């Protein structure tokens, strides 16, 4: 990948993060809305959540969003809508554009970090 492309990609990631993601972040913080708890709640009896989807059915093996770039935006939108995350819906379009820009099917040569668990 050319240095120019890497630089352009960095700009696009930065732009998305600061002009689209961060405003959502600030607005949710203002409303004190969180996606996950960050600390223990000693008043609870259990921290287990009961899974709504306890098994996989044949249709669950097919994820349209990962099988075609053209479906990605729609599937992301559908997922967040079904989860009730309406504040994220507007981000799907820009994320789809970002994915198009970042798409690179080439060898991933980055080494595993010895400092942090591989989470993404």
């Amino acid at each position, binding site marked *: 990948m050319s240095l120019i492309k890497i630089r352009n*990609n960095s700009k696009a*990631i*930065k732009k*998305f*993060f600061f002009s689209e*993601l*961060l405003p959502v*972040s600030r607005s*949710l*913080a203002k409303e004190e809305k*969180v*996606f*996950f*708890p*960050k*600390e*223990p709640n*000693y008043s*609870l*009896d*259990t*921290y*287990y*959540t*009961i*899974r709504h989807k*306890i*098994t*996989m059915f*044949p249709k669950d*093996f*097919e*994820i349209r*969003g*990962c*099988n075609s770039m053209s479906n990605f935006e729609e*599937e*992301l939108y559908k*997922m*967040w809508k079904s*989860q009730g995350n309406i504040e*994220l819906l507007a*981000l799907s379009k820009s994320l789809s554009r*970002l*994915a198009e820009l*970042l*798409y*690179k*099917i080439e*060898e*991933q040569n980055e080494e*595993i*970090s*010895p*400092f*942090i*668990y*591989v*989470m*993404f």
Partner: protein
Amino acid sequence: MSKAVLGISAFYHDAAAAIVRDGEILAAVQEERFSRIKHDPRFPHNAISYCLEEAFIEPSALDAIVFYDNPLLTWDRVMKNCIQMGEQSFGQFEKASRSILGIKMWVKDYVDRSIGSLGKLGKLLFTEHHMAHAASAFYPSPFQEAAIITLDGVGEWATTTVGHGSNNKIELYYEIDYPHSLGLLYSAFTYFCGFKVNSGEYKLMGLAPYGKPIYYDVIRKYLIDIKDDGSYRLNTVYFGFLDSMVMTNEKFNDLFGGPPRKPESKITRREMDLAASIQEVTEEVILRIACFAKKETGSKNLVMAGGVALNCVANGKVLREGFFKDLWIQPAAGDAGGALGAALLTSHVYFHIPRKINFNKKDLQKGSYLGPDYTSAEIRAFLDRNEYPYERIKDSKQRFKKIAKAITDGKIVGYFSGRVEFGPRALGARSILGDPRRSDIQSVMNLKIKYRESFRPFAPSVLSEDVSEFFEMKTRSPYMLLVAPVREERRLPMKPEALNGGEDDIIIKVNQPRSDIPAITHIDYSARIHTVDRDYKPDYYQIIKEFKKLTGYGIVVNTSFNVRGEPIVCSPLEAYKCFMRTRMDLLVLEDCLLWKEKQPSFKDIENWRSEYELD
């Protein structure tokens, strides 16, 4: 109609491929065995090619190809994490968007480009990460039904699940989600103690018996709240993994008296005590979850997978606690096993192939000997071409006797036989063997063969029928996933100076003979046990049997055939290189025996010490 399914895991750690036909495991192997990069996360081109060759199948004839994870849900986690953590998470967002939006989301295109087809379906299938772990644990197990526990760093969101498997059906009822993760907690301590995250967790477990759990209360008070049912929640204010590129932060340092240990610096009393403390907390959580799983499912069997299930000390305690009559753990419990789980899940759930169960208590993992093998003719061609002197002993009985005699004489033997093991442990197909009765063998093997820290213990391979003669354990442990104490009457008391040697006492402790099988007896009189059955690995079984005839001991030292930081050897060439780079005395390549003193001087053109980074 026969159904062939290819499973793939990649892009996190330990990329792998597995192929299953009608629910039967035909082949499974990690990419690292070919690429020679330890824990290689890259797309497993080589592993896939091998699996297809082994199954004699063209890519276009595959009924399905399945990836072990749902990248869309992983992206959901990344987005929500960054939104919640705000501006300071930009570094993580930049890295994650490049790796997920740029690469992982489009794994389908990698498959297409790698093998030129998406199989008969013309599309890639996906499973949920923990469903793949659960499938890898349940389907190959010898149980018709079993409770299921999966524990790892993180999948898409889940880090822990509890469920039940019965025939074809797998159901996961409960889960704990990111950022609350026992795997991430253990990795945080791995990092803090100066070992590599994603690979050094095993070292931390090995270090634990040298310490005292003096930080247990601090961990319980500040870092994790554990409920009676084993569910838990971390206090993320002490961790860096939510918004930085390291596992812990300043607040964590403050709790444990300063910054993390620098890699390769001296291991001090603090690291030993931290290891002991986090191990105790981990065991407590796992035992409580096991108890909860028993209550919820009523099953008498338990299966486990996920990286945390490689904690064989905790596994041994689960077994000894007696919640379950029987326990089976996927030998490739980490992400590599996800490839196998995804393929099995697709076979049994997507294609409804009825699950086969062995009612003779044997599992369907085939001893985990699922990787490449080499014939004697191939090996001889390699040796002849290179003019390496060898002795061929076709009579297997004579060969086994000779190998056993060498071990008895204190020789260190590189043993290469049959198909490569799937999973991180060497089980007698690619192993280095020694005499467990010798008190110096642990330090000799560590420092002259493995080139690694001398505190790390070696494992015994013991004849299945003799296991209770040496250890306080009656069950089989064919995948080296259980730790049990050495029998009381075999133990030797530790000298007081070894117990109270202050901060520098680790070497004094290591060099203390602790039993009549000192090379495999850990500081706390425990051992990581590999039981060997005639059915699974007859050649290896016979060698140990011959060793027993000579010594009265049906047990040998078994460590993986590699040097520190190197993946386990796969081919005869890699085995020969490893043999010549270390102070092994004898190399066995199938029916060919090579003695070190007869070999020509070895001109090593590779700088392997820098090639294989310390792990």
